[in-house]
């Protein structure tokens, strides 16, 4: 589904991603862990097409298409979704109106008819229940004055509405208490199927108790330096990232 080959990217001429390789197949859950500043968000941003990054080398194939040549909205149409680490506040635009426009634009991209009012209402009710979100939150300006937990639930709510093929979750757990993590993870797990995939970026192992990964990758200094089964996350939690640094030091020393 997604195939990243030797991806290099810079911001303001500074190289942040330094040769990423990653393959994700339908039905899989991948976790990317790594210390602050490793380049985790940069990877998510480059994949979704945020302006300001320059890809200097490598390629990304998503569903057989050159992902990096598509506009951000086309990537969404192809089925890519990013749950933002810091969701943006937008005054004067209600979440309902925003989501309705997004759903119908994505449907249009996919050659589907727009949802009529009745079908939309049914869909939104179902997803609201899933994410334990109430109507009053949806009528408010998008993310404006939302608590951290509300913002993240709203992100996963949007994911549920858009039904992406690949969802990237950038630190969706950070700043959330355990109840909120449970709601958010439950939402992700309900949407999960053998047809779609999840790339969960996180700092802590805790999220992975709820969203159980098939693979764990350690991103460090712009590269994936180690990959393994879900137990790797536990090892990282236990030993901290220093153990990776030490391991790398040994490798470099040898």
């Amino acid at each position, binding site marked *: 589904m997604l195939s990243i080959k030797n991806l290099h990217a810079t911001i303001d001429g500074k190289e942040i991603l330094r040769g990423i390789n990653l393959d994700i197949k339908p039905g899989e859950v991948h976790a990317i862990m790594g210390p602050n500043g490793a380049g985790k968000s940069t990877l998510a941003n480059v994949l979704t097409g945020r302006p300001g990054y320059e890809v200097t080398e490598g390629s990304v194939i998503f569903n057989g298409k050159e992902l990096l040549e598509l506009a951000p*909205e086309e990537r969404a149409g192809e089925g890519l979704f990013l749950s*933002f680490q810091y969701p*943006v506040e937008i005054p*004067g635009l209600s979440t309902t109106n925003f989501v309705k426009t997004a759903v*119908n634009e994505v449907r249009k991209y996919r050659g589907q008819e727009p949802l009529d009012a009745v079908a939309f209402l049914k869909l939104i009710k179902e997803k609201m229940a899933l994410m334990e979100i109430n109507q009053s939150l949806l009528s408010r*300006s998008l993310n404006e004055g939302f608590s951290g937990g509300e913002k993240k639930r709203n992100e996963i709510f949007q994911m549920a509405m858009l039904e992406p093929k690949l969802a990237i979750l950038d630190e969706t757990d950070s700043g959330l208490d355990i109840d909120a993590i449970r709601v958010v993870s439950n939402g992700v797990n309900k949407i999960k199927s053998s047809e779609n995939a999840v790339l969960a970026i996180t700092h802590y192992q805790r999220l992975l108790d709820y969203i159980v990964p098939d693979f764990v990758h350690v991103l460090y200094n712009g590269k994936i330096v180690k990959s393994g089964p879900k137990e790797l996350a536990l090892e990282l939690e236990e030993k901290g990232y220093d153990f990776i640094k030490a391991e790398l030091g040994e490798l470099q020393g040898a």
Partner: protein
Amino acid sequence: MDTPIFLKEQFEKLQAQETSELTGFRQQAFQNLEQYGIPTLKHEEWRYTRVNTLFNKDYEVNNNTGLTWEQLSDNRLPGYQDANELVFVNGVFNPSLSNLLSADLEVLPLNEAAAVYKNIVDTYLGHSADYLKDGINALSSAFVHGGVFIQVKRSKAVEHPVYIYNVAVATDVNVLAQPRSLVYLQQNAQLTITETNITLGSQQSFTNKVMEIVLEQDANLSYYLIQNDSTNASQVSTTHIRHIGTSYSKAVTVSLDGALVRNNLNIILEAPHCESHMYGLSLLSGTTHVDNHTIVDNRQPDCLSNELYKGLFDGNSTGVFNGKIFVQQIAQKTNAFQSNKNILLSDGASVNTKPQLEIFADNVKCSHGCTIGQLDEEALFYLQSRGITENSAKAMLLHGFAIDVLDNITNEAIKKYVDVIISKRLNFDLETI
């Protein structure tokens, strides 16, 4: 600059023609006009607005025409069937075009009111001159003629909104129109006013409007000013609101089109615990110039004022925002908030913004802030990442920026009317939502 000759001639003519309680008032104002002169860019309050250039030509001051509603039908405000409509033609109140539905709304020619309600008119007419010491305000007073007095009696809530149309008929000649009104809300009275300007014809029009409003205790006023006149139309719109008792006011100014537009909104808080909200939206293109000058004068303790002005400037349009807040020494525990946010949509557009706080009390909460920027890139990417095309995303963001102000218009018909105009201008599809 010196008083133009045509104004002197017109003034002499008016004084000779119409003798009333207001003759002396006009004479005094004309002396002020001579003393102040028409302001040039050298005048501190007119630094960015070349109002003097409007006097490079002569105007007819009053040439009442046989206007009919058919000629105005394109510009009639929605919801008019349920509104009290007051029409000024070239600055003169026109009773035959006007249409009063509410028994609780008293409307009298100003010169009659000057006799019937002598006390009120003597006390309150012309108070704006204390705050606007310039030839433009004096010009209005020097030509007070054909004005109206609007009154709502104690505890009456006027259910039907008041729509005021300032019509300038500039079909054959340049027109100077000076509509003048004094609005008095007695204790616990309620009124909603929507005001708009319409210029007919392709000659130049200059509307110099002054509306002075007085609010007694527990009075409640909502005031909406919708400016969408043609590009040959200039106006100075002065709205002067005195809270003489603990009372509430809300003013929303929406500027969409015109040549040179200057708005003076003065809020004078003369009783404790008053509350005043002021909102503004400019959405401009072409060479339209809109200057919003606001004054909030806190003269008693415990008042709250909240001000939010936003601007979207495209083409070669220019905006000015000047927000003054005075807190007099006695006005402890004043809460005064002010915010001015602007987005420049083109290289040719510009805006000047200046907050001005003069605080003489020590226990007050005041805040002000202004921003001038482009569209928020983060927000744009956020919407695009959800599948919304760049153009729709931009339109949605700009519409959201504007609707934040329009949401304060509680007359739904008027809000919708403005929303349709701005959505069209921003290529925002209202049908999608």
